[in-house]
């Protein structure tokens, strides 16, 4: 039987809300680590030197080729065997972040490759170093392409973060399970948890829309001024029409 009272009771449970906040914080932390690893790997994979390219290639291959759940368990329960002991939170952050980086590396690389070669050459011909060319010319144009898939990746990460419950990270799913062990109201409490995840991804959806609009501004800005010019022409046409 579905118990509405239990459902509404846990819908505003502070314990679960805190869990959701921890999930969000974990996702943000992992995303920052992921972006750092991803950008580094993307740049390395475009290097002319094989010995720089290859490690990045192996990184992407390894972390995209194995389940993130297995990676988390290896980091938390396997590495201590080699004397590397990481806490729950660091394990979750590193596991999720490094795994995410492997996917983001491909997204970032695709974005950079989509910038026409001529842009790079023009920057080099002016005398910009490789680093300046990347920062001033290539990345701003690549961002327009990268931002939408990056936003989707973060949406995915917020849901994937629930895997950290397996290594006893007390985020939303883990807290849900702990509650259920005491309350036995399986369906109601899991549905509440699902709604919290839905709330997180929906809110992110709004943020993502804003971000996308912001980063395509130079394209839309030029379109806008063109539209404005067209409107002025139009109003002038109307004015002269009225005068005659």
């Amino acid at each position, binding site marked *: 039987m579905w118990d509405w009272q239990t459902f509404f009771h846990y819908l505003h449970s502070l314990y679960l809300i805190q869990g959701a906040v921890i999930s969000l914080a974990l996702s943000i932390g992992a995303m920052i680590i992921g972006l750092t690893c991803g950008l580094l790997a993307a740049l390395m994979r475009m290097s002319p030197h094989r010995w720089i390219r290859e490690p990045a290639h192996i990184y992407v291959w390894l972390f995209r080729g194995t389940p993130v759940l297995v990676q988390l368990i290896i980091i938390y329960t396997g590495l201590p065997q080699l004397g590397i002991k990481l806490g729950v939170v660091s394990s979750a952050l590193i596991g999720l972040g490094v795994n995410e980086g492997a996917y983001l590396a491909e997204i970032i690389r695709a974005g950079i490759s989509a910038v026409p070669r001529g842009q790079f050459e023009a920057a080099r*011909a*002016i005398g*910009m170093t490789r680093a300046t060319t990347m920062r*001033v*010319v290539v990345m*701003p144009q690549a961002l327009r392409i990268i931002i939408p898939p990056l936003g989707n990746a973060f949406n995915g990460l917020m849901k994937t973060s629930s895997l950290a419950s397996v290594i006893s990270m007390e985020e939303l799913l883990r807290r849900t399970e702990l509650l259920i062990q005491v309350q036995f109201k399986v369906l109601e409490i899991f549905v509440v948890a699902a709604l919290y995840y839905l709330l997180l991804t929906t809110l992110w959806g709004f943020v993502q829309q804003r971000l996308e609009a912001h980063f395509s501004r*130079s394209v839309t800005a030029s379109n806008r001024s063109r539209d404005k010019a067209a409107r002025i022409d139009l109003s002038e046409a109307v004015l002269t029409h009225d005068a005659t």
Partner: protein
Amino acid sequence: MVEAQGIHKYFGHSHVLRGVDLAVRKGEVVVIVGPSGSGKSTFLRTINHLDIPDQGTVRIDGQLLGYRADTTERTAVSDTKLSEQRRQIGMVFQQFNLFSHMTALDNVMSGPVQVLHTARRAAAQDARRLLALVGLEDKAASYPDQLSGGQQQRVAIARALAMHPKVMLFDEPTSSLDPEMVHEVLLVMLNLSQQGMTMIIVTHEIQFANKAANRILFMEEGSIIEQGTPAELVNNPRNERTQKFLRLVIGGV
């Protein structure tokens, strides 16, 4: 001013440049003509090491480009050093290659601000002067996709000039322009040449070459076949292949 010696370039198995030599004096305007695939664009790109020559050297004002001068082996200089050397060489591309996310003014300012670390205000002032020079002072706030091809190419010329280069390279600057826009770009180039700019130009515009060039080179299959003043080369070519090419370019049947 510019001295290229024994330039060889391979793309895979094809031998694109077969020992090209060129010395350009200060203020000289050199036009390179030749059929497509003759290596003229590649040669131009080796002069600023956008394409790095497999053999041979380029010197700008006596300074060896891209390699350390204190060793006999070819030891490449650092990226920072090569970038520093490239500042002396302006380049204009067939496809304009304006930075699409920047306004015309920001495009022209980008070199001084990002490379020379000129203060924005001073850079903007100089950029406006250069835009006026190419007749586009009213387009400072426009983005490249709001400009015609001819206007984009003139902004690109201003962008190259903003670095105050010692020599300007033009790689088929009018080849992707509609016919009615070719003239405005050539006019800017003619102006530059009259102001004493050292220029190396790859183009099919023989009439322009006739008017602006001190010297014309004819390239084919990776070598310079013939060179001389416009009077010598255009009106009285000695080499058979030059004659044939000119007949095709100038037109007529």
